Structures are given as C-alpha cells and as structure tokens.
C-alpha cells in the first residue's frame, strides 16, 4: 500500500519533470561525470549524479534538496554528459516546480542593501529569474 502510493507520486513527479525539462532521465547510467564536473558540489547536499538517480526513481527528495539551488546553470554537466542529457534542464525543472508553488530561495527584501547597491544589476535580474518565485 505504502509502496503503491509512493510510486504513484513518483510517476506524477517524473511526468512533470519530463514535461518541463524535455529530458529523459532514464538515459542516465550513473557514471558521475556531472558530479566530477560540477563547480558547486562543495556546497551541495546531494551530488548531481544522486539528484539524477532520485529523478529516475521519482523520489520527491529531489525537489527538496539544496543542490538544485546551488546549481548556477553553467552547463558544464550538460556539455560533458556522455549520454547527452541536458542535466541543467532537469535541475531547472526541479527549481521551476518549486518556484511555481511559491517556494523560493531568493527574496529581494532579504538581500543586504549594501550588496544590492554594489552588484551589477544583471546579478539581480538573473538571480530573481532563477531563484525567486
């Protein structure tokens, strides 16, 4: 019973991720090239490869991990994936599912004023587009 419920949630999540990303996560063979390439892993709770595995399993933990918010969409994983998966699009799908529910990590009012006045405005524009709802 519990298993059935979990897999049903998994299918819904997988379908949504597929629809938003246009990528087939089942092509992933867990080689770890993405993790080895990623420049953000020091601050991630899950390696990109592990996120890929959770997506394959339809495990909702993929949505709640910190890693998706550390990804800076540099596309190095995408460029190197031997299976041709656009991993950055899968990471984006996980962010977008969160953002569309209002779960955001970057709120304008929480950024220190000194930083807002110092950074190039493109940092705000891009940061809000990727990390705020």
């Amino acid at each position, binding site marked *: 019973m519990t298993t059935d419920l979990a897999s049903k949630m998994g299918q819904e999540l997988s379908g949504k991720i597929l629809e938003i990303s246009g990528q087939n996560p089942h092509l992933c063979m867990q080689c770890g090239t993405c993790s080895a390439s990623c420049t953000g892993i020091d601050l991630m709770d899950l390696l990109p490869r592990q996120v890929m595995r959770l997506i394959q399993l339809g495990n909702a933990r993929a949505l709640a991990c910190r890693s998706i918010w550390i990804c800076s969409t540099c596309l190095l994983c995408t460029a190197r994936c031997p299976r041709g998966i656009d991993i950055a699009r899968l990471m984006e799908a996980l962010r977008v599912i969160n953002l569309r529910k209002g779960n955001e990590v970057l709120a304008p009012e929480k950024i220190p004023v000194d930083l807002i006045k110092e950074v190039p405005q493109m940092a705000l*524009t891009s940061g809000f587009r990727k990390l705020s709802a």
Partner: protein
Amino acid sequence: MAEEKEMVNIYIMGKHYKVPYGLTIMKAMEYAGYRFIRGCGCRGGFCGACGTVYRKPGDFRLKVGLACQTVVEDGMYLTQIPFYPANKATYNLEELTPTLGTLLQYYPEMTRCLGCNSCTRICPQELSVMDYIAAAQRGDIEKAANMSFDCIMCGLCASRCPAEIVQYNVAILARRLYGRHIAPRAQHLAKRVEEIKAGKFDEEISRLMKMDRAELQKLYDARDIEP
C-alpha cells in the same frame, strides 16, 4: 425603441443595470445608485483615482480607462479597481543620491521585469511604461523621469504586472531624484528669491495689504495674464 436608443445595458461587478446613453462610467455608476466616498477625485481626468477595468462583448481583452473620462457602451462589463496596497517606499529625498543603487535599494523587485509589456498595454495615459522601467533598470533616471512625466499614479500597471513591480512608485522616485538632484536649478527662481529676501517687493506688499476688497478686485481683474 426610443428607450433602446437612450438607455444602454451595463454590468457593474457582474450586476445588470440600464443607464442613459452617453454617460461616463462614473456618472453611470452614480445613476445606478453607487455613491463614491473614494475612487473619485478630480472628475477631470487628471488625478487617476478612478482607474476602471472593462470589457466589451465579443472581445476577450480587458480594457482600462478612467471612470470619469470613459463613456459607457452597450454590453460593457466593468468595475473600478480598488486601492492597491502596493509596495511604497518612504525616504528622505534630500539624503538620496540619483543613482541606480537608490532605485534598487527601495525597489529591487524592478529587476524582475519580464518585458511582457502588460503595463504599457494597460496604461490609460498611453505611457511606454515598460520602456521607462527599462530606463530605470539601466540607471537612466532622467529618461525614466521624462518618460513617466504624465503618470497619474492610477496603479493599473502594477495591477497587471506578473513580476509585481510597482511601476508608478519607481517612476515617482525617478522624477523626484531627477527634480531634486539632476535637473539644473532654475536660475530665474533663485534670482527672484534673492530679490524677495533683499526686500525688493516689501513696499508693494505693504501697499496691497492696505487695499480694501473692492480695490483688490479691480486690480485683480486688470492683471496681466501671461500668454
């Protein structure tokens, strides 16, 4: 038949009313029994208090206008927009610098603009709202101030913005920064203030103060009117 011509059907907040042809939305609402204690200011198309959203039959598009300026049409669905509790910063203008940093300090959300142009499409003043926000985003305060000069602060732009920007409040900050810190001081005004301080008009003022009402009236009627 006569009545058909003279009366039109409108729907205020979904409820049907028959009102005389040719009335403005504001007068039609009053005809229908509404009494305005707010959302009605100058009645002359300037103050922006009576922003109204309407739709005509056969068109999916929402249109906007000021209730005091827009004439009702048959089949019109309409409602006045309520007050929007939109983000409004308080600041001491004297202490501010006319920079992008100041705009971003009070309205960082303006960098969330998607470029959808909904604000420009809805502006009853036909301002290029998206373009003045674009100017603000690149720190061109003078351009943002000039492009938004005719803004009446009705709030319709903010009501449509998917990025939740308060365009009119960004714009008034830009105009204030421009007026206080960028625009050159008016030389003629400075000169006149000096003249007043030096007592140049004291004699004339005291002469006026001693006049009675009839004399003043006569003087007023005969005044020079600048072209």
